C-alpha cells in the first residue's frame, strides 16, 4: 500500500553554525561563498585539521533555571534557539495548541559527550569532578530534556541519534505523529557540538582532511568537522495556509552494508530517494535542487555522484555546502534542510564551494557556483554511519517570481 505523507507548513526555522548565528548570517555566507572553517583550535590535544566552530559558544549563559544542563552542547542549543525569534514563535505555538499537543523531536550524534570527556580529563579520586557530577548531562537525551524544559513542551519528546542522519529523521517522526493526530505541531531540529570523540574518532578512521574539506573535488582528502544548532516548527498546512514553505515528505532506508562506509552502489540511498518520491507523490523531473550529503570523504562522494547521475533529470541542480559549514554530523540534517529552505525562499542554487578540480564522476547536474534560479521543489540528503539514510523534500507553494 502506498502511504501518502501529510504536507506540513514550515512556519519558523533557524540555524546557527560556523557561518554565524541565524538565517541572515547563513544567507550572507552562502551568497559570498564564504567558508566558516578555521584551523583546529578546539581539540584537547593537537590535531592538524580544519573545523567549523561557532564563535562565542563558551560565553553563552543558560538561564538559572536550566543550570543543571549547562555544557557546550546545550549552550550552543540555547544560542541557536534565540536566533530569528524562534523562541518566541515556539512559545506562541505552545500557547496556540497547548503544551501537550506540541511534539519535540531532536537529533544529535554525541549530545553532551564533551562534558563527559572533560570529566574524565580531570577525575577527582577516580570519580567525575564535583561540578560535572550531574546525571542530566551524561546522557544522549541531555539536549532534548533541556529544550523540552526551556520551551515547556509536554507532548511526545525524544532524541533521535542515528549519527549523521539524526536531524533529518526527526522530520519523518514529526510527520507521523501529526498525521496520526498524536500532536498538532512539532518542533524539530538538532544540535551537535565539537568534541574530542568525533575529532579523534573520525581521525582514527582516516576520514579527517588536513585542509578545508572539498566535497566532490577530484583531490578531496576527507571531512572537516563542524558544530551547529538548528530548529524548525512544523504545523498542519490547513492551520498555516499562508506559509510559503512546506515539508512534502521524508524518505528513509538502511544500507545493510557497513558500519562506517556507505554502500558504493548507493542502493540504500536510492531507496530513501524513491521512498520520498512515492510518499510526496513527486516525479523526479519536478526536483529543482538537491542539497547533497557531500561530506568530501572518498566513498560518500563517489557513491553520491553516481546516485545523482543515474537518478536525476538533467534540469536538476545539485551541490554540497559542507565546505562552508563543515560536516556538522548529527546537526547536518537540520542545517542543510534550512539551507535548502533558504534556497527555495530566495530563489538560488548554492554553489558547491571548495572545488578546484571536479571529480570526473560528477555529472553536469553540479552547480559549482551560485546560480539565481526560482525553485519550487528541493531535496536534502543525509546519510549516516550504520547505513542510516534520510531524504527530505521541501516545496515553495506560493507564486514563484
Amino acid at each position: 500500500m502506498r502511504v501518502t505523507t501529510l504536507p506540513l507548513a514550515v512556519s519558523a526555522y533557524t540555524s546557527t553554525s560556523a557561518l554565524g548565528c541565524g538565517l541572515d548570517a547563513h544567507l550572507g555566507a552562502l551568497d559570498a561563498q564564504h567558508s566558516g572553517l578555521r584551523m583546529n583550535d578546539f581539540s584537547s590535544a593537537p590535531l592538524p585539521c580544519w573545523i567549523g566552530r561557532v564563535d562565542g559558544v563558551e560565553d553563552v549563559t543558560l538561564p538559572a533555571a536550566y543550570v543543571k544542563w549547562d555544557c557546550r552542547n546545550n549552550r550552543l542549543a540555547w544560542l541557536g534557539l534565540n536566533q530569528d525569534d524562534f523562541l518566541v514563535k515556539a512559545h506562541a505555538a505552545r500557547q496556540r495548541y497547548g503544551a501537550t499537543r506540541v511534539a519535540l523531536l531532536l537529533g544529535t550524534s554525541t549530545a553532551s559527550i564533551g562534558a563527559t570527556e572533560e570529566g574524565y580529563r580531570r577525575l577527582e579520586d577516580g570519580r567525575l569532578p564535583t561540578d560535572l557530577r550531574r546525571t542530566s548531562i551524561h546522557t544522549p537525551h541531555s539536549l532534548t530534556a533541556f529544550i523540552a524544559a526551556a520551551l515547556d513542551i509536554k507532548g511526545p519528546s525524544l532524541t533521535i541519534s542515528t549519527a549523521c542522519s539524526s536531524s533529518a529523521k526527526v522530520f519523518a517522526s514529526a510527520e507521523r505523529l501529526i498525521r496520526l493526530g498524536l500532536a498538532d505541531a512539532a518542533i524539530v531540529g538538532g544540535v551537535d557540538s565539537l568534541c574530542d570523540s568525533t575529532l579523534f574518532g573520525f581521525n582514527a578512521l582516516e576520514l579527517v582532511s588536513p585542509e578545508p574539506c572539498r566535497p566532490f573535488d577530484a583531490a578531496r582528502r576527507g571531512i572537516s568537522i563542524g558544530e551547529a544548532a538548528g530548529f524548525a516548527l512544523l504545523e498542519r498546512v490547513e492551520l498555516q495556509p499562508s506559509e510559503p514553505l512546506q515539508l512534502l515528505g521524508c524518505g528513509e532506508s538502511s544500507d545493510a552494508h557497513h558500519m562506517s562506509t556507505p554502500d558504493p552502489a548507493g542502493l540504500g540511498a536510492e531507496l530513501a530517494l524513491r521512498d520520498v518520491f512515492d510518499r510526496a507523490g513527486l516525479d523526479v523531473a519536478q526536483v529543482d535542487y538537491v542539497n547533497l550529503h557531500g561530506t568530501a570523504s572518498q566513498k560518500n562522494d563517489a557513491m553520491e555522484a553516481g546516485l545523482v547521475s543515474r537518478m536525476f533529470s538533467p534540469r536538476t541542480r545539485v551541490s554540497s555546502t559542507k565546505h562552508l559549514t563543515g560536516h556538522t554530523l548529527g546537526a547536518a540534517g537540520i542545517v542543510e534542510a534550512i539551507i535548502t529552505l533558504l534556497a527555495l525562499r530566495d530563489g538560488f542554487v548554492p554553489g558547491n564551494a571548495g572545488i578546484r578540480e571536479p571529480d570526473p564522476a560528477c555529472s553536469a547536474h553540479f552547480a559549482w557556483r551560485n546560480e539565481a534560479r526560482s525553485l519550487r521543489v528541493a531535496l536534502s540528503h543525509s546519510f549516516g554511519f550504520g547505513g542510516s539514510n534520510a531524504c527530505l523534500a521541501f516545496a515553495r507553494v506560493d507564486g514563484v517570481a
Partner: protein
Amino acid sequence: MPRFCARGWCCMNALHIQVEGIGLWSPQCADLDAFRRHLAGETASTSHARPNASALSANERRRAPESVLVAVEAASQAIAASGRGTDNLACVFTSAYGDQATTDYMCRVLAHAPTELSPTRFHNAVHNASAGYWTIATGCRAPSSAICAGRASFGAGLLEAAALACADDRAVLLVNSDTAGTGPLGELIGCTRVFGCALVLSPCTTTGMRLRLATTASSPRHSPMSAECQAWMQANPAAESLPLLIMLATGRGDCVLAVSEHLGLHVEMETNA
C-alpha cells in the same frame, strides 16, 4: 473519528497494535519462557554471561560490543516468535545510554592518548550501532532508527514504533536495551544490570495479542510486581518495559508507561468482547 491515518487504526489519539513476537534477554532470564517461569515463582537456576546473538556472523560477534549482542539476541527471539522475515522489517532501537562501556573506553583514551583511539570502537560508539549491526546482519534495507528519552526510553520507543506501524501500515521491530555501566561514568549513572527486550508490532487485526495505546497526563503506574522485577527496574532503564512484558506474558492488565518527563502512555490489553 479516524484522523488522517491509513485505515483508521488511530482513533482519538489512541493507537491499536498487535504484538506478533516477544524477545527478552538478561543474565537471569535468557528468553520469554524463562521470564514466564520467573513470574510463576521459579528461581532461576543458571546465570547467562553473554547472549548468543547468533544472527551476527562470527566476525561481527567478535567486534560488536555487549549492547549490540543483547539487542540482537532480543530482536532475533522476537522475530522467530513472529515468523516474519527481517529483510523488509522497519526497526526502532531504543536505549537510554547506548553502550556505556564503549563510552567509558572512549573517554578514558581521549583523556590520555587521543590519537590511539580504536576506529572500530569509535564506530561502535554511535547510538545506532545496534541498528547498524542488525540491518547489516539481516540484509534489512527498511528504515531503521535509534532513539533515547532518558528513563522514558522504552515508552518513547514504543510510541515511536507503534506510530510507524500505524502511520505507514507496516510491521515494526522494537528493540529496547541497556547494559551495565563501567568506570566513572557507570558509577555516576548507576545502571548496574543488563536488560533487553524486543517486540514485533503490526497494525491491529482482529486476532492475536492486541494493545491499545493512548497518551495520557497520568503518571506511570503498574500492577504489583516481584521484588526481583522491581530491582531490575531500579537498576536499568530498559527494564521500565517490565510492566508491559508482564502484561504480555500473563495476557491481562494495563499500565501507564512514561514517554517523556510529562507524558504517559496508557497501555491496555484488548480482548474480543
